[in-house]
């Protein structure tokens, strides 16, 4: 399988009069986990949305597995899966139906859905409508939706958000599992300590720019105005 690295070169993106992302560059080798840390509004979500081809950068370039996120959007989308703040779910459909819809659109058969729901401990609520779900359960369901795509690259935006402690363990387990299968992972999170234990590299963003970059182990040492 070709290796899938993530490269960003002077990425920039603005919202109106403000730079959300400013001159961001980094390289994530294949099958590694990189943690993206930073306060609210530091640009973590914007970075992930650009890499997932959800939005276009205003300047700079980025590529996933050698495919440019603007010109080769289709190929990038085939490789990546995104866990986003917006959980991409249909409120009026049940958990199982949401996954079945995604499977249909991926051209995959529906039979793997039950097993995925079990993996995120939602098999008991498979036939309940998502509008009855708590935030944590929605996060689990969108996790299942990510796994359904069997991605080579995974972009996780606040994976621990709204989860209960068993949920945290679930996320750690899934990340380890994906990593073992050679998936390249980007984790944007505030849970520094947990993420640092799982990640190989770390990137710290502040006001849209990279203020620190290096091995995950040292990120705790990097004294950041919390």
């Amino acid at each position, binding site marked *: 399988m070709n290796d899938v690295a993530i490269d960003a070169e002077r990425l920039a993106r603005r919202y109106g009069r*403000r*730079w959300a992302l*400013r001159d961001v560059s980094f390289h994530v080798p294949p099958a590694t986990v990189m943690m993206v840390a930073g306060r609210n509004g530091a640009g973590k979500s914007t970075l992930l949305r650009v890499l997932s081809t959800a939005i276009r950068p*205003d300047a700079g370039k980025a590529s996933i597995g050698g495919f440019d996120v603007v010109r080769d959007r289709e190929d990038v989308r085939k490789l990546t899966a995104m866990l986003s703040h917006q959980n991409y779910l249909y409120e009026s459909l049940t958990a199982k139906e949401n996954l079945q819809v995604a499977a249909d659109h991926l051209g995959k058969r529906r039979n793997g859905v039950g097993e995925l729901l079990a993996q995120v401990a939602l098999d008991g609520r498979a036939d309940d409508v998502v509008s009855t779900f708590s935030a944590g359960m929605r996060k689990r369901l969108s996790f299942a939706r990510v796994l359904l795509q069997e991605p080579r690259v995974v972009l996780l935006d606040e994976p621990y958000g709204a989860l209960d402690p068993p949920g945290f363990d679930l996320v750690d387990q899934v990340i380890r599992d994906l990593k073992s299968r050679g998936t390249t992972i980007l984790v944007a999170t505030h849970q520094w300590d947990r993420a640092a234990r799982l990640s190989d590299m770390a990137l710290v963003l502040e*006001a849209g720019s990279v203020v620190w970059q290096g091995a995950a182990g040292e990120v705790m040492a990097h004294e950041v105005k919390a």
Partner: protein
Amino acid sequence: MKKAYVFIALGVALLLVGSYIGLFVAPAEEYMGQVQRIMYVHVPTAWNWMLAVLFAFGCAIAFLFTANTKWDARLEAGLEVATLFAFLLCCQGSIWAKPTWGVWWDWDPRLTSVAVLLFAFLGILALRGFVDDPQRRAVWSAVATIIASVDLPIVYYSVKWWNSLHQQQSTPQTVASQFHLPLRINAFGVLFLMIGFIMLRTRIANYRLAREMAMPPIGGEQAGELA
């Protein structure tokens, strides 16, 4: 920049000459009497309105292919001028219809098509007003302009069928020769005026776009303002 004013001046001059001839020199039409003179301003406006719609249509397609904001600025100018001309045409048309048919609106296929497109373009201008993101506003108004412009011929033929059951054709197509002079002069008059307007309006749109899209400087000192 000065070119726009030259076009406008030329247009006004031609319009004055053409209108003078149309109003005072050209003979009154045997059936229509004086009312015929409205044609010397109505028909040129109609021809140029058509051009404005084609211009807007062209800009919309050009923008979708090149994604260059220059075309979006020109599209905005084209849309506004075409809407203004459509409004003017409807007014002139009803002023002409009142003495001729006794009603303010006689469902003439051409005029009805103008009215339909007037509302379609007003809808697009409203769309532009409601969307703040310049990129999206440009793409959506381009798409809407293409859809509305393609609709023009369809509206014309459907109204013509729909209307032909009640009344025969309302305005004589052929215009006798001695009426041609004021018509042509005014046609070019309105054309130059329109070109001038479009150039001015495009500049305004460019200024606004520049302000909207102005890249905040990438640099250290910017951080203060952000924090």
